[in-house]
């Protein structure tokens, strides 16, 4: 109720429009939301659900090209949609704060962390600069940042992603706001880093009894953070319930499908006989960028028709290994073999047929496809280059490939990438790789930019193609759920070395190498007590550190 003193934020019938193609299109269709002081509300949904837009609207803010067209946003008794912009601005930073998805991009590269931290409190005259700096150090300490008295005097590029995300949470706390909007704060982080940031955020929100809106697409994460969960779909509310109820007995079908997403599981293929020649062999490879050594003595095999998942945190050398195999980065030591035959280290020295054998699919289909080139040319070019097809034969081949990736040729043949959805673009990326008729495909985080339902579609497609075309995959990922669903073998990498490898069933059954154990136990589970349990097991003071050292 609005007169209840506990109610901090009350949104009613919120409608938001976005400007595109020279007209206003409604993207949020009348959402209600009530948040009490000290409570955490989880907003969950796929991309395009309007989560961030609603989160920003709670600050009375609309991005350029968006506007709040109807409804009310009442913050602590003040109606934000009708007050002057200057009055709304005064709330931001002081009483409502924001924590962005990518801290690396959201900190200004030109200023030290602590100067960005003190900006709001000094501007609002809540604290003097020196007091605010002291406070920043205190908060850095509470968020368990290393060297809390010094880290603030670094520039953003000198601090790691997980630390930046904590520093940004500290910055949001600088004026002790009543409400913080967390917009996917851990999405860009590794699982091992995510767990530290989650714990830090939860503690500090508890300590200061701050209310929060926690936006994410990851159910397991929101289960740890939120008191209540609201599910959104394409700008509409699907349902809202307290966390335990929502996890145990979701009412709506859409919510149930979200819960069921991780069910895709492919039967593991048995290892080939010992004498079989692997399609790709990485043999004692070292690699370096300039003077920096990034791979050390890396060896593994990929057999025909099998999927090898390479897992590890960012910076562990997964993608560098792929660059060595494709010849983009010649190794400083060691060999790359295709079907037992050694390949020239540099791709320039490889024959067309050797190049054809190994193809890549990339993480960001958006940037991997030229937006100005038609689908027919994107797929047709490698078919023409490697197979010499021309004219009608080429068109037949492109149609065939489009059929293969389950896109209707007549609909997609002459379209451009920007007209396609994320999942469709990724399918085009797959077709482009298939056009070369390879026997081996490197999939570099191909599903991590996609929503879960879409990602599952891609995984099923890749699985079907593997069976039909006897393809071997090297699957680079940091998502262990993906590994569980499609891998035959798993290679765990850390700091440029292979820590452990073996068949999937063996890798997922204890005992593990301590680092594999750390990775596995860091994957959030749907149990609201999961974070507590893990923290307890590890001992709160050395989260993530135990197995690192």
């Amino acid at each position: 109720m609005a007169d209840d003193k506990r109610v901090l934020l009350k949104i009613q019938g919120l409608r938001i429009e976005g400007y595109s193609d020279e007209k206003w299109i409604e993207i949020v269709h009348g959402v209600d939301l009530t948040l009490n002081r000290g409570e955490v509300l989880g907003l969950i949904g796929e991309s395009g659900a309007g989560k961030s837009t609603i989160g920003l609207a709670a600050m009375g803010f609309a991005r350029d090209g968006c506007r709040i067209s109807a409804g009310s946003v009442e913050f602590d008794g003040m109606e934000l949609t009708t007050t002057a912009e200057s009055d709304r601005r005064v709330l931001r930073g002081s009483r409502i704060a924001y924590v962005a998805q990518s801290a690396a991009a959201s900190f200004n590269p030109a200023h030290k962390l602590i100067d960005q931290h003190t900006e709001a409190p000094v501007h609002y005259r809540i604290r003097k600069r020196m007091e605010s700096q002291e406070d920043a150090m205190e908060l850095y300490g509470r968020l368990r940042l290393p060297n809390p008295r010094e880290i603030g005097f670094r520039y953003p590029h000198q601090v790691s992603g997980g630390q930046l995300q904590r520093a940004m949470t500290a910055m949001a706390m600088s004026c002790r706001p009543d409400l913080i909007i967390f917009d996917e704060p851990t999405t860009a982080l590794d699982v091992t880093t995510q767990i530290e940031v989650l714990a830090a955020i939860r503690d500090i929100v508890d300590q200061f009894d701050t209310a929060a809106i926690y936006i994410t697409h990851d159910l397991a994460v929101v289960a740890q953070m939120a008191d209540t969960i609201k599910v959104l779909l394409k700008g509409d509310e699907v349902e809202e319930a307290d966390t335990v109820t929502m996890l145990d007995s979701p009412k709506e079908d859409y919510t149930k499908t979200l819960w069921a997403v991780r069910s895709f599981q492919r039967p593991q293929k048995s290892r080939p006989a010992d004498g079989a020649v692997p399609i790709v062999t990485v043999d004692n490879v070292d690699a370096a960028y300039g003077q920096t050594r990034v791979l050390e003595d890396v060896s593994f095999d990929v057999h025909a028709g099998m999927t090898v998942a390479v897992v590890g945190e960012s910076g562990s050398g997964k993608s560098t290994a792929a660059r060595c195999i494709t010849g983009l980065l010649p190794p400083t030591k060691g060999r790359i073999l295709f079907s037992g035959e050694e390949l020239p280290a540099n791709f320039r020295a490889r024959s067309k047929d050797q190049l054809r054998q190994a193809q890549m699919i990339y993480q960001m289909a958006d940037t991997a496809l030229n937006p100005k080139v038609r689908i027919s040319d994107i797929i047709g070019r490698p078919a023409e280059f490697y197979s010499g097809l021309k004219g009608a034969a080429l068109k037949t081949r492109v149609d065939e490939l489009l059929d293969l990736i389950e896109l209707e040729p007549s609909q997609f043949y002459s379209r451009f990438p920007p007209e396609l959805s994320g999942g469709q673009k990724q399918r085009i990326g797959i077709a482009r790789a298939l056009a070369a008729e390879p026997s081996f495909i490197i999939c570099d985080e191909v599903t991590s930019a996609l929503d879960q339902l879409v990602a599952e579609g891609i995984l099923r497609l890749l699985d079907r193609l593997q069976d039909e075309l006897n393809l071997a995959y090297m699957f680079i990922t940091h998502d262990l759920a993906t590994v569980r669903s499609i891998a035959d073998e798993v290679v765990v990498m850390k700091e440029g070395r292979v820590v452990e490898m073996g068949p999937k069933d063996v890798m997922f059954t204890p005992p593990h190498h301590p680092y594999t154990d750390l990775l596995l136990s860091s994957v959030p589970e749907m149990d609201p007590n999961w974070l507590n349990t893990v923290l307890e097991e590890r001992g709160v003071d050395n989260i993530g550190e135990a197995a690192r050292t």
Partner: protein
Amino acid sequence: MGDVTRIIITRLGLGLLTLLVISVLIFGAVELLPGDIAQAVLGQGATEDNLRALRTELGLDRSAPVRYFDWLSGAIVGDFGLSLLTQSSVTDTIAPRFANTLFLAGYAAVIAVPVAIILGVIVALLRNTLFDRVANVATLTSISSPEFFLGYILILYFSVKTGMFPAIAKLSDDLTFFELLERTFLPALTMVLVVVAHMMRMTRAAIINLLASPYIEMARLKGTPAWKVIARHALPNAWAPIINVVALNLAYLITGVVLVEVVFVYPGIGQLLVDAVTKRDFPVVQACCLIFAATFILLNLAADVGAILTNPRLRHPK
């Protein structure tokens, strides 16, 4: 700082190399002229004997590479030889003229650079408003008009009609500094009008380009006022392109002033160059060209260094 020092030294080395290549081009261009200098000086009616005598006197009987290195080694220590016309030292002829040009360029730059950057920030802040459009149209008009035309317009209004400033920028030794500023105000203003638009528009574009960055949105979500978002969060990251366009315009102020100097009868290096070309005084032409080239290279080098020094990633390595 190790990285930055190394980058700067590399750039400096490249700059010197470029200058060396240009010196070859300048010397070579004069060599390629039809006839030779003796022919040019003495004209069509000269006899073989006269020509030979002059060639010996000027050292033209030696081979081209020998003369090039002779010229270059002189140039390095500031000795550009003797003027063919006056037989006085080229260095002594050029030095006071170049100082005048530098003074005028500096005068114009001191006004133009702050005005351009401040205007650029203001129009970025008020983008797509009436003020933005008026500022854009006004500066575009001034950049599109030829310098001599702008110069005469200014003379018409500020000198002929109102008599506020003198129309002719003649210099003499007994002028006080303020008299000097007053006399050279109109040529300086002409040049300001010519260069402001370019720098202002680049400042505007560089800032607006950054306004879509997540850290700008973050600044706005921290409640930072709009002017502070631009001054504190956008501008520090926009310096690199701004510095580059400023350097380009400063170089133009020094090397592109010929017309303005002629209009205002100002004794700068531009006028000297025009005179030397018409009178075929090659040592002076060569020296002027080399000075212009050095100015361009030096200013571009300064822009590179400035861009490096404003990049926190280079200034504060991991």
